């Protein structure tokens, strides 16, 4: 038997190609091609989103948790009673924990023990993005938001180890039983994935300010475009003395604090 390999391969190739083409001709794959994908027209956009937290204003409402509640409700964040397994997007922490290098043995009365609002810093050079093996977290080119794709996260928790700010939370179990009021317009997460603040990118797309910013009764959270010299955030940075958390690490957080 003489076997002509070339002709065999040719025929096989034709058969496969033919089968696929046949499928196409059968009107099976047509339809999806004429779709055009667009960003939302009324979306809030910026070249570099950033935030200034004015802790002085925040302090006026001692014990206020409006921003936290708004965020966590908007994003189906579970309220887990076990503090060591909490999921937090935005939370309050004592000053000396938020800014450990600012603490001295002669504490400032005003600052020591002050509750500081913490959230993801959306660093300009985020270590979490650097370490993620699947690009489940990445920095958006357009506006600098450090995004997460919960469909892709494999739950390796490398990003948690990498984040120097404790901004990331892991779902140790199924979060749903701990979500007091589930919203249908935002997904919950499933067990085994990491989550964190996304600067409310879904609200920005709808033309709304982040939930926390909107909820603050004192307007202590100012959100805007760091790349725009005329923006409110830039004005504050120009006029006020602000701090970033752990600047020595070179991550360049985009969340600034006025103390």
């Amino acid at each position, binding site marked *: 038997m003489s076997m002509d390999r070339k002709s065999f391969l040719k025929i096989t190739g034709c058969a496969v190609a033919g089968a696929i083409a046949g499928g196409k001709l059968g009107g099976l794959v047509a339809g999806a091609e004429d779709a055009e994908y667009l960003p939302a027209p009324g979306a809030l956009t910026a070249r570099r989103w950033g935030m200034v937290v004015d802790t002085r204003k925040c302090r006026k409402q001692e014990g206020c948790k409006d921003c936290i509640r708004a965020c966590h409700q908007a994003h189906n964040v579970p309220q887990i009673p076990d503090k060591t397994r909490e999921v937090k997007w935005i939370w309050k922490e004592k000053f000396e924990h938020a800014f450990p290098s600012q603490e001295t043995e002669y504490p400032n009365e005003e600052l020591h023990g002050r509750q500081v609002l913490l959230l993801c810093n959306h660093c300009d050079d985020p270590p979490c993005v*650097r370490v993620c093996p699947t*690009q489940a977290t990445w920095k958006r080119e357009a506006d600098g938001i450090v995004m997460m794709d919960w469909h892709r996260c*494999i739950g390796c928790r490398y990003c948690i180890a990498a984040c120097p700010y404790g901004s990331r939370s892991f779902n140790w179990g199924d979060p749903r039983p701990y979500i007091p009021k589930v919203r249908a317009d935002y997904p919950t997460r499933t067990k085994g994935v990491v989550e964190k603040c996304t600067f409310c990118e879904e609200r920005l797309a709808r033309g709304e300010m982040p939930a926390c910013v909107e909820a603050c009764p004192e307007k202590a959270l100012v959100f805007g475009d760091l790349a725009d010299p005329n923006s409110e955030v830039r004005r504050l940075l120009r006029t006020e003395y602000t701090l970033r958390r752990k600047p020595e690490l070179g991550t360049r957080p985009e969340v600034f604090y006025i103390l």
Partner: protein
Amino acid sequence: MFMFEKAVVGSRRYWLWILGLFAVIGVGFLNYLRQLEVGLAITGLNRDVTWGLYIAQFTFLVGVAASAVMVVLPYYLHDWKVFSRVTILGEFLAISAVTMCMLFIFVDMGQPHRVMNVILHPTPHSIMFWDMVSLSGYLILNAVIALVTLSAERKGVAPPNWIKPVILLSIPWAISIHTVTAFLYNGLPGRSFWLTAILAPRFLASAFAAGPSLLILFCMLLRKLTWFDAGREPIRRLAVIVTYAMIVNVFFVLMEVFTVFYSGIPEHKLHFEYLFVGLDGHNSLVPWMWTSVILAVAALVLLIVPRWRRNDRILAVTCVIVFLSLWIDKGIGLIVGGFVPSPLGAITEYAPTLPEIAITLGVWAVGALIITVFYKITLSVRESLA
């Protein structure tokens, strides 16, 4: 494919051991099924200590895997003929250890269903991607080398020439797996415990002590349980390797201690303090760490005195001591110590739960099964040639 027919015939003792391993694997597997169902909540991990027993075992075992180079390199590069009988044992040890590493990573994942994402979305800027590449590469290299050399041995012919470069490649590759694993940790800005350039060398030094110790123990065990005798000379040489590696390892640790405490930077100091004296009353690891230190010192003494090192019984004890000391150091202290205190200064202690331990033992049992089967095959092949 590895002559598995040799592994399915064996004595009653062999089968009892295999059965026992399967029982441990079974218990581990059932617990893993539960972890799949419930999530990592069944472990003792938490917000602050996000990696624990699983990843620690992984780190330790990467070292064991890499240590195969300590028999491969002298044998192939320096033509140390005495290692001719043990080289393949080292390679199979590497195969078993790398497999365990991969399993430990797998069981540590929150979403194991999505493990393929690492390959589907390759991300060169992530060290974990490179770890995947180097570990799987090392597994393949060792599998190919062991298979090809063993089947050539069985046929009584010289191994094919192309295997030489593959073996040579496996030498730097072994170094790479542990280096890359060290990079996993010491590339993280906020974790000062790991932020030390000496981490990779330290890993390698401890690996080259722990791995050959294990190999010595295996040789002794094989001598006791089977007809196979690796001979005195390879064990002696391995013991010398362990001695030097252990010395270098302790030296490196002392360098770390000097740097941290002489510079006095609190963020660096706190982790050591947590491990060796405890922080704010949190001191659950303190006894472990001191045990490790004492064992390390004892091991050094026993290793350095030639008369003791050459005594088989003492050497066996020494190897166990070295192994335990380094296992505590790397398998417990290194990972947990890096997470406590947290970047926000929180001190949350971690203790593995029973299911977590069961899963861990299950993975170790898989490793033991692999090594048993491969050693059985090797010995059967050699027996039929004898």
